């Protein structure tokens, strides 16, 4: 691929990532924002592909889009009807947060851009080798962090179940608003 094509692909993916991200922030309808997350994540997956991280392209699509985004959309749909669409979707911190976050991004970008990074990739690696090497690393050198991550995941799942269960031991309080999800 020519350099120009690579640059064009990168710019396209940048737009594909950042514009939906902006929409995620600014859209009034939260469900729409959730859907705007989809192209954003796909753009990131594209960037992973450009970085030759093929395993993570698949993982991004499967885990983020297939699992996390669906979960988020579920949450939105379960709670959407209580949100008054006329009510402001942003809190009073916008005026403060926008300049601060902009400064943060700008400074990071500035510092990183000014650093004399190597011009190109030090070396390239084959796709199969990579995935095999990652698999070996996960059950070899990095078995402990990997297992720790799985324990974290398990704990999160158990915790989610405990939290999501309607409190049955407590007396049924009239003032409590029943979870619409529980009714279903």
């Amino acid at each position, binding site marked *: 691929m020519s350099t120009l094509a690579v640059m064009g692909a990168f710019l396209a993916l940048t737009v594909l990532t950042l514009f939906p991200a902006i929409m995620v922030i600014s859209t009034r309808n939260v469900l729409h924002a959730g859907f705007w997350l989809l192209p954003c994540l796909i753009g990131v997956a594209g960037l992973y592909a450009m970085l030759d991280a093929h395993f*993570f392209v698949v993982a991004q699509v499967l885990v983020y889009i297939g699992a996390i985004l669906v979960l988020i959309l579920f949450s939105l749909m379960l709670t959407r009807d209580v949100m008054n669409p006329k009510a402001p979707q942003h809190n009073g911190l916008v005026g403060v947060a926008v300049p601060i976050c902009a400064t943060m991004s700008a400074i990071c970008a500035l510092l990183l851009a000014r650093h004399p990074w190597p011009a190109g990739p030090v070396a390239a690696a084959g796709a199969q080798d990579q995935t095999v090497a990652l698999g070996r690393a996960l059950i070899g050198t990095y078995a402990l962090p990997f297992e720790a991550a799985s324990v974290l995941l398990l704990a999160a799942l158990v915790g989610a179940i405990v939290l999501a269960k309607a409190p049955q031991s407590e007396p049924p309080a009239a003032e409590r608003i029943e979870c619409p999800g529980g009714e279903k």
Partner: protein
Amino acid sequence: MTVGLSHYLILGAALFGLGALAAITRRNAVAVLMGVELMLNAANLNFLAFWRYLTPQGMEAQVFVIIGFTVAAAEAALGLAVVLNLYRDFGTVNVDEASGLKG
């Protein structure tokens, strides 16, 4: 002009800033979670960019990204549970209305 490491890093910084902005300013708790997901994505992107350009032979970056994915998944699951509980207790999913420290 080739695509260098700094391009990815700048993109990651921008994505992270947008995610932070979403996490800070959105009132809806689920939207806040979405902002956090964006930030995690930016971090993952940086990890992979560094891996690709600086340490292509190493495995640390990729393992970190794996863990980042795990954290994202766990966060999404727990986030949903918290949002549902929040909704149950306060009758709203607006984070700024749920400011009481005791449920």
